[in-house]
């Protein structure tokens, strides 16, 4: 008896039992189910939610791998100094970097998936529905948007909060209002602000060494800018380093290059909305230009604490921090984003616009993507409402010229237009 047959028998055994969703989740992971169509269309296209989510994960894997190497690279560079004549093969893709990165990043991945999926299974079994695939992507996003030295217990608490309050209380995948991964990130930020900001948490080991003779700094690019140390930052990192991602930051967000590739793949595969991505980029450029204009017009003095970030060249905002990552992987979440095509343009634009605005004006922490996306998540239904009203209005306008003939029998029909 082959594996397929054995699993089929087990499935029949579990049918109707409490544990069925848990077993089915594992079973359908190995084999796509033997379900056939019952109503409506007799044939179905091949795409399902698992495939969709899997495509997003594939687009994330390069970012994760890069994050692992970068964790090691940033750590050793902070201690030993940045290598001169940097070469990717010699200084970046090394066993040392990989090993250090693996032992710091992979536990985050394990905790994120472990805690999150456990809760998903639990809810599925209790509520008797199948385990939905939404967390497959969330669980991958979370390790990529947290600082590398996030304590695992904090992460576990945040994941539990994010999955239960951010998603399950609304009814699970497809019903949530806020992006679960960002809810987790926001929980970490607001619950443990001293940990999540400052210049220590971005590079592995910086926290432990703080205050000792071996203290190292892991200041992010945005950190430098927020303090007005633009020249110091540019002395340390050049634009190509920012673009390719050899800078400190959350695990997977640094390499704009790989994010760009991932984004192009998602657009090509028709999984993520190009409308949101394009309009978000346009939005962030617009806000950046406004700030640059303010600086050029000399409306703010050089000693202003916003000067550093405001004077930062508008398009370079896309290279640093989590902006690119947020635009490609988080803003395009179909459940929490705008659902109409026209709404997506507005939604994306405002995300880009607000991200850069919050980034510049946030006094405690120079990053705003996750707050901007969460804010727009809340407004997405409103945007959709007005877009859909446009369609309804067109229909109502047409109604004025409706050709309604009386009944043949001559019966007078009671007027039933009150609902319109």
């Amino acid at each position, binding site marked *: 008896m082959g594996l*397929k047959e054995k*699993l089929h028998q087990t499935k029949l055994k579990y049918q109707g039992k409490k544990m069925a969703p848990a077993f089915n989740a594992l079973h*359908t992971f*190995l*084999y*796509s*189910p*033997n*379900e*056939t*169509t*019952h109503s*409506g*269309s*007799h*044939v*179905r*296209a*091949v*795409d*399902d*939610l*698992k*495939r*969709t989510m*899997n*495509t997003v994960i594939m687009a994330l894997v390069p970012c994760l791998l890069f994050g692992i190497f970068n964790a090691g690279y940033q750590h050793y560079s902070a201690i030993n100094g940045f290598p001169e004549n940097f070469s990717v093969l010699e200084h970046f893709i090394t066993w040392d970097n990989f090993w250090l990165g693996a032992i710091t990043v992979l536990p985050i991945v394990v905790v994120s998936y472990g805690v999150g999926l456990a809760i998903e299974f639990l809810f599925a079994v209790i509520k008797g529905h*199948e385990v939905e*695939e939404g967390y497959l992507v969330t669980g991958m996003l979370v390790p990529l948007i947290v600082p590398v030295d996030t304590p695992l217990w904090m992460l576990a608490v945040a994941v539990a909060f994010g999955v239960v309050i951010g998603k399950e209380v609304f009814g699970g*995948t*497809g*019903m949530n209002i806020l992006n679960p991964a960002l809810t987790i990130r926001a929980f970490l930020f607001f619950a443990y602000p001293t940990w999540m900001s400052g210049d220590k948490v971005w590079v592995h080991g910086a926290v432990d060494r703080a205050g000792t003779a071996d203290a190292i700094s892991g200041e992010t690019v945005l950190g430098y800018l927020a303090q007005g140390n633009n020249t110091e930052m540019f002395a340390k990192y050049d634009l190509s380093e920012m673009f390719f991602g050899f800078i400190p930051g959350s695990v997977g967000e640094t390499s704009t290059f790989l994010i760009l590739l991932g984004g192009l793949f998602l657009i090509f*595969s*028709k*999984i993520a*909305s190009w409308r949101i991505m394009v309009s978000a980029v346009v939005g962030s450029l617009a806000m950046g230009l406004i700030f640059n204009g303010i600086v050029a017009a000399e409306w703010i003095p050089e000693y202003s604490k916003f000067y550093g970030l405001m004077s930062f060249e508008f398009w370079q905002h896309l290279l640093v921090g989590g902006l690119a990552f947020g635009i490609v992987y988080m803003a395009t979440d*179909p*459940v929490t984003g705008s*659902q109409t*095509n026209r709404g997506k343009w507005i939604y994306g634009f405002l995300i880009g616009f607000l991200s850069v605005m919050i980034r510049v004006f946030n006094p405690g922490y120079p990053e705003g993507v996750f707050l901007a996306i969460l804010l727009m998540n809340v407004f997405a239904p409103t945007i959709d409402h007005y877009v*859909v009203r446009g*369609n*309804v209005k*067109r229909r*109502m306008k*047409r*109604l004025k010229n*409706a*050709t*309604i*003939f*009386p*009944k*043949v*029998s001559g*019966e007078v029909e009671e007027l*039933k*237009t009150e*609902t*319109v």
Partner: protein
Amino acid sequence: MSKDIRIKKGLNINLVGAAEKTTSKAVLSNVYALNLDDFHGITPKMLVKQGAEVKAGEPLFYNKANEEMLFVSPVSGELVEIVRGARRRILTLKILADKTQEYTSHKVMDVEKAEADEVRKFLLQSGAWPFIKQRPYDIIATPDSTPKAIFISGYATAPLAADPDFVLQGKEAELQAAISALRTLTPGKIHVSVGKSSQSPLAGLEGITLHKVSGPHPAGLVGTQINKIDPVNKGEVVWTISPQDLVIIGELFLTGKFNAERTIALGGSVVKSPKYYTTKIGAEISTFLYASGVSQEKFRLINGDVLTGSKTHPEGHLGFYNNTVTAIPEGDDYEFFGWNKPVFNKISSTRALTFSWMQPNKKYDLDTNTNGEHRAFVVTGRYEAVFPLDIYPLQLLKACMVKDLDEMEQLGLYEVAPEDFSLTEFICISKQPHQQIIREGLDLLYQEIG
């Protein structure tokens, strides 16, 4: 005056087993049956008892809501069985056919001089009225209504559907008679759509407004054409009739006989030699299915096309409105890592390691597997890519699911029939039953407002 309709949004589903354009005469069926599920929303009241002898065209039952609307027997013979289901609901009427067919004759009518009331009465009494469907609600037309327009689609884009140009060959006289008769029933236009480069007999008819349609499925669905030509507003009524049913109506006016004969397409990858057959409404499907041969034991037999048809079996009977019968493989098997491996042999609307976009003209052998489990709505923007109507499909489906009557009205439920959502159902990543959701929404709206 003709207006071209070009549809861009959509998806052609090319399947293996298209019917070859040769027509054979199907073996005569012993038993013919009317399946009451075909007449949605009709409560039948029987006019004859079990065991009664009926002629072809003789009434079997009437619509409880409208006594004038008669439903007739397609053949002459003995009503051998009234199959009933739960709560004695009538499911099927079976008629054992006589060797020599006798027809009820109606008075032949000169359609050119006929009055509206005469035509209406004639259609109701002769059993041809049920061929006329109406929107809103996608039900048999209410005899009391006057439509603002009548729509006839002579362009089929559904997978493996019978080609109207082929099956209507030589039926010009019948079609013209039917059109002339229907003309009296509406002060509006009769919109007839044909394929852009087709040689349809419909194109030469008088008294119609001709439209040339091109584009992928669902360009051939009458709902798409209504939306592009003259959408239905609240309170308005339009009628739709399939061209093959026009032939039966036309023949009634010309000869006074209800001739249930029609040419159907038998297709699908399971059928060994797919082709056209002439048979009658209600004929047992095995009478022509096995003439063409089937290549496997287990298959899904569909009364209609693969997107909108209903499930049946070889002993089942040809539906009242159908001119297509399809047989495809059942897909009740597991597939190892079916959710993440690259797929070359199935159709997809994305490019997520699926490669049907590379070969738009390749013919596929699809089975009935759902390719995934039922989920909540997650992905957005995909339906819009294959849904050419000026309607927000996802929002309308959700309004139907939560039974929000105001939203259903405002988002355009009056304009659609379940079949308009067959393609969004096909590509649905969450495997939601769109057609069922829309059907239930329409029924609810009819019950509450109609």
